[in-house]
Each structure stands twice: as structure tokens, then as C-alpha cells.
């Protein structure tokens, strides 16, 4: 399965991935309207400290603890893509407690959201990858992606 890999060597810490993620999942076609004067709530988030930065989003684990632990069945695997049915989520935060990467977070309405590789929105390919200006985020179908070779 194609996955997102990030390379902290190339990450500029510009946070553009966060903005494009929030926009891609906003359902709006006007970036300014969707993001201006709002606290954005992206599914990919940049960690940074002392010159180091890297973006973190769902790893689509082979053994997804979030899916196995979800108390309602809201999380599931569709051929390796880990998706959430927000309608069935009750914000119990069990998935937050078990995700080893800290990548599942509440959405604007409090129910959980997570990276679905932009395969469930109208973009169809990960917006963070597409718009990262320094190619620090790649989308590859490989066990050992180019960045790690």
C-alpha cells in the first residue's frame, strides 16, 4: 500500500502541509475563506524544536491499535487505509490513548479525525505531499522508501 513518509532532513518547518491538509478536508474550494482568521485543525502536525522539524500524520499501521481498540467500531481498515466513520464516534478518546504516534485527534466538533490520505475527500491524493515545497513528505509504495535508502 502507498504510504506517507517524512524526512526531517528536508523539512523546513514551514507548516504549509498543515494548511493544505485543513483546506483539503474543509470541503471548500476557496482557501482564503476556508482558513482565514480561523484556528486550523489539521490531520498532519509539525513537531519542531531547536532547528529540528518534521510532520507527523497517521502511519496506517499494519497492526492498527486504534482500530482494534475503538469501543464503537468507528475506526476500520479498508484494505490497509485506516478510516473513521465520524458518525459512530463518541469522543471517548480510547484511540488517542493507544495510537503510538499521537496522530488521531479531535476535529472541530470534538469527534475524532485522522489522515485518510485524502482518498476520502475530493483531492484524491495526499495534499501535504503535493504541496510540500521541499519534498520532505513523500507518498510511496515501498517498504523502504527512497528517503530512507
Amino acid at each position: 500500500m502507498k504510504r506517507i513518509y517524512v524526512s526531517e532532513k528536508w523539512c523546513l518547518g514551514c507548516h504549509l502541509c498543515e494548511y493544505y491538509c485543513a483546506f483539503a478536508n474543509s470541503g471548500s474550494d476557496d482557501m482564503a475563506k476556508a482558513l482565514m482568521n480561523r484556528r486550523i485543525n489539521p490531520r498532519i502536525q509539525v513537531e519542531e524544536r531547536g532547528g529540528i522539524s518534521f510532520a507527523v500524520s497517521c502511519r496506517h499501521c499494519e497492526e492498527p491499535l486504534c482500530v482494534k481498540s475503538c469501543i464503537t467500531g468507528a475506526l476500520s481498515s479498508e484494505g490497509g487505509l485506516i478510516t473513521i466513520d465520524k458518525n459512530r464516534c463518541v469522543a471517548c478518546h480510547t484511540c488517542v490513548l493507544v495510537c503510538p504516534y499521537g496522530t488521531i485527534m479531535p476535529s472541530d466538533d470534538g469527534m475524532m479525525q485522522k489522515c485518510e490520505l485524502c482518498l476520502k475527500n475530493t483531492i484524491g491524493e495526499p495534499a501535504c505531499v503535493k504541496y510540500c515545497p521541499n519534498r520532505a513528505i513523500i507518498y510511496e509504495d515501498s517498504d523502504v522508501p527512497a528517503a530512507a535508502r
Partner: protein
Amino acid sequence: MKTKQYVIIGNSAAAIGCVEGIRQLDKAGAVTIVSREPHHTYSRPLISYLLGGKTDRQRMRYRDADFYETHGVRPLLGHTALSLDPAQKTVALDDGQVLPYDKLLVATGSVPFVPPMEGLDLVSKKFTFLSLDDADALADAVTADSRVLIVGAGLIGLKCAEGLSGRAGSLTVVDLAPQILPSVLDERAAALVQAHIERQGVRLLLSVSAARFEDGAAHLTDGSTVPFDVLVLAVGVRPNVSPAREAGATAGRGLITDEYMRTNLPDVYAAGDCTESFDITSGERKPLALLPNAYLQGETAGLHMAGGGKPFCTAMPMNAVGFWDLHIVSAGSYTGNAYVQCEEGHYRKLVCRDNLLQGFILIGDVLRAGIYTALIRDRVPLDTIDFELIKDKPGLIAFSRRDRQKKLGVKPA
């Protein structure tokens, strides 16, 4: 090869985990689920959300409506397994059916624990709160002017209070313990959550218990009397070890298994609330009545029954629960050196011992708590990471560059 006959007693998290485990490896075997409850598999924790109008019967299904079909399961719902015969390898049901098995999973869950209390038999409207039928019965009994008394300020009692808060006239919770949620929280955290719950109009009476009941009133050990219309008994739950124990399965407080969830009886497995788990943080064996644990144990059993799989050896207490939008997550055990931060509406306690994170409690800000849980689960030596950096805010930044690369730059496990 002859198709295997799998029989599962139970239809909840552990049972579903088992089906999904079996089907990862064996698409052909015949799987039968036997369940006393007549319902499609549902999320047990959601019964309080159902009372509160926050979910409905469709949405509280634990799996899609066509789950049994798509997973090739024959569901025998509304049937109780009365006994099992490990020599003949059969299970006898209440309607006289006898089911042969090659592999059997016992996933019979919990039963309510109701200690003997004087006068309890005189109370006409009394309920436990463990099943969808319990929730339905309670919904029928409670009206807008009902005074509800809940005995037990643990997770189930307090969740019941939250679920009923829009429906009942008044809510009182009593508990013998001096604090709420004694198995989950320490004293200070409990006080914070207690204040929040009391602000919602729930009356909490602690360090007292009911000495005697009459219909419509509880006489407490401090001499006071609490009148009520509806009584909910939420003192605790116990592993439901029958009928496996009667058939010779070894049980302490719960059924005893190895790390593949095998009991001492050949080809009989057990998973979920009916078992005892080995808690890696305290080194003790104890029942862990938790849904993720039940699923993971069930899946482990299913994989092994189908001829594969790996051992499950990462069990620990783990709770994620919210009361009126205040979120609480906790994991592990709390003996060791504690780092505590406490401010208005927030609480953070991290407990370390022997160079390992052993447990934590977070209230309010619970974001990315799973990073802490993974430190406990993976037994990460704290001197190999920059733990100071993440005491107030969990992050992957605490790991070395090499470990970060392994986490984010290559295919995940």
C-alpha cells in the same frame, strides 16, 4: 483438509476479535457464535450514550449490519450455552442443541457483582447497568420526576448517572470508598473530576454505604436516609467464568490462560472480561474489564485457533472516559516517582520506576497520550529518550533521530 468447526460463546468485543482473527488466516472454517443476548453485536460502553440520546440502536452496533454474512458466521443469538464437554468437544445449549467444536472460544464477559444488602429484595424498581436490555429497562422506569439512587461511583455507576442526567428528576450516587473512580484515579484527580460531576447537579455521597433498604428508601451507614424511586446497583463486575469453570477450566478471579489465550482444557480458549490478564506494569494477574483488552485477546485466540498468530503479552489497565466533556485517560500503575501538574480543570501525573514509565493519568488535555502509552507498552528505557522534553506535552521529538526515522521514514509495524 477438513474444514474446522469453530464455536464462540459470546458476541461482544472478544468474540468479534476472534472472528476477525480467524478470518485473517482461515476463510473456509465454519464459525458459530452463541450469545445469550438476542441482539446484533453492539458496543457495550454505549448503553449510557443510548440513555443520554447520544447514539441510537443502529449506530451503537459494534460492527456493520451484514457482519455475520460477510464473515461467514452462523449467529445463534438468544441462546445460552449451559455446559461444555471437553472430552467429547461439544457445547450444550439451552434449547437442547449440542454443538461439536474443533476449537472453542469462551468469551462470556462480565456479570454484575451485587453484594448481599439487607432489604434489597423489598425494592421493586432496581436495576443493574451492564447490557442493552438493562438500559432499555432503566429507560422505561425513569421519568422526569424520578429520584434515582446509584450505588457505586466507579466507571459504570458514573456513566449511568451521566446517561440519566437529562431524563431523571434527581441523581444521587453513593460509594463506600472515600473517592470516586478508585480503580482509575488517585485522590487528587478524583477530587477534580468529582467537583466537575457535582457541577452537573449530581449528588455524590462518599465514604458511606447502604446499611439497609426498604422500598423507596436507603438507610445509610452515617444514619441518613436517601429516598428514591429507582435504584441502580453498580457496585462492580466479576468475570463470568461459568460454564467453563464447571467443565474443568482453571480459574482464579477469572479464567486462566496462556499468552495465546489457551485454557488448560484442550482446544478451549478464553478471552475478554471473563479472564485474568497479566498486567505488565504491576506484575500481577487480575481481571481487566476493558474493551480494547477484550478485542486483542479475542484476536490472539482466533489467530492461534486458525493455526498462526503471536502471543499477547502487553496487557495493562487502560482507561479512556469522559464525563460531561471532561476527558480522562490513564494507563498502567501508579507506584513509583510521580511528576504531577495540577491546575484548574487539568491534571497530569506521570509515574516512573526502574527507568521506565509505569503509568499516567491525564485529565483535560489528553492529546497524543498514546505516545506515553507506547513508552509503557514497549518498555522503553527512559534514559534512551529525552523524557524531560515531553513531560508536559507528548511528542516523537523525545526519540533519537534514528528512532524518529524508524517511526516516520519506513513502513510501520
